[in-house]
């Protein structure tokens, strides 16, 4: 990948070693991830929209679950990944973690927005309302604002390192919201029903509905990881591009002056 020698003036050469390895490994992994994701998605779509049975009380509307629940899991699982990246960024100052966190937040904001949108489309026919301010819905809205805030904050500074640090601090403060999202349905009365799959006893979902849900969850997770990896690759290459351009500008200045 890095065929040219690093230009002079570019400090922290040792830190580029790991991003280089990341680019190599992710480049090998990405086609397989994407292929597997699309394959699972095709299977999940046919199973979820056509082959799976309706629910005894919700009827066909239960098919919204096959997209809503994976989006909710990804919104929370993705935020957990952001928390891990933020700790790595703050404690070990690893630049790859900075780039990955910065590229993760727009994707996280997207899946959280999709979770809210599909939840709204599900709530209207089932509960009789698009939106209520109960603890679950409100805490997921807060999660969305955290994702958007992180995406904006990391891009708000001229110095990308400073933006990354501010974003990491915001992400870690926002981590308190994660258990609130997860346990709000158990701690307080909410309109939203409690968890079905991750119960301590058997999941309250018949296997004919559970299996397509798990296939779709796997499909969207693979697509999410593929998107995040590809975005991080793009971020790294844009960073390298900027460094090369700056080095070229400095060289031109030196030769001209």
């Amino acid at each position, binding site marked *: 990948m890095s065929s040219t020698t690093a230009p002079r003036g570019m400090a922290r050469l040792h830190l580029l070693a790991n991003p280089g390895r990341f680019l190599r490994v992710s480049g090998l992994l990405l086609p397989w991830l994407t292929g597997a994701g699309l394959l699972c998605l095709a299977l999940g779509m046919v199973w979820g929209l056509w082959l799976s*049975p*309706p*629910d*005894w*009380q*919700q009827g066909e509307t*239960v098919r919204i*679950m096959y997209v809503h629940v994976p989006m909710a899991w990804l919104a929370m699982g993705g935020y957990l990944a952001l928390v891990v990246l933020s*700790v790595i960024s*703050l*404690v*070990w100052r690893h630049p790859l973690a900075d780039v990955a966190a910065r590229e993760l937040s727009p994707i996280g904001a997207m899946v959280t927005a999709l979770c809210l949108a599909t939840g709204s489309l599900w709530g209207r*026919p*089932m*509960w*009789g*309302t698009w939106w*209520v*301010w*109960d*603890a679950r819905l409100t805490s997921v809205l807060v999660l969305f604002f955290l994702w958007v805030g992180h995406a904006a904050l990391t891009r708000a500074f001229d110095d990308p390192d400073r933006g990354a640090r501010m974003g990491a601090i915001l992400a*870690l*403060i926002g*981590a*308190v919201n994660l258990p*609130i999202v997860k346990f709000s349905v158990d*701690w*307080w*009365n*909410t*309109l939203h*029903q*409690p*968890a*079905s799959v991750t*119960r301590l*006893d*058997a*999941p*309250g*979902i*018949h*296997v*004919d*509905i*559970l299996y397509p849900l798990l296939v779709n969850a796997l499909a969207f997770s693979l697509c999410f990881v593929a998107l995040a990896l590809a975005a991080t690759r793009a971020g790294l290459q844009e960073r390298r591009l900027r460094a090369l351009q700056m080095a070229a500008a400095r060289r031109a200045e030196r030769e001209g002056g």
Partner: protein
Amino acid sequence: MTRKRRRLYILLLCGIGLGTATALTLTAFQDNLVFFRSPSDILAEAPPPGRDFRLGGLVEAGSVQRSTGPDGRPHVTFRVTDGQHSIPVQFSGVLPDLFREGQGVVTLGRLGPGNVFLAREVLARHDENYMPPEVADALRRAGHWDPARGDPPPASGWNRLDPRRSGG
């Protein structure tokens, strides 16, 4: 090495502080975070008269009476129960599709004369159990479950039932 370890410890300390503060705040505001209150809550501590609040629970079996009000709108009375106590509810308007006896509901309104809850809005609250209609029918026919009386039996008893065999 020591600088990294120090940063890690500072981070952990901040995390513990933040977590404790959040837990204390949430405990303090517990009453404002609940979306609805159960009939037992209401009877134990009546809300101030004339104040809107949300009442939630199950629609009591055999309590639903539908009629047409003087304004031509559908009128319904039912009782909301939490197993221990129940409160009568009056509502004029369109009910959500899921409304039935044994269904969870959350109603918004206020207490009227005679401790009757005058609802302005009725939302359905479905449970966290999902099963094909054939499986639900089989459970009902076998006498394992009456949906009008609440939740289905433990999921391990039905979540692998074959709907084709039980549907026959």
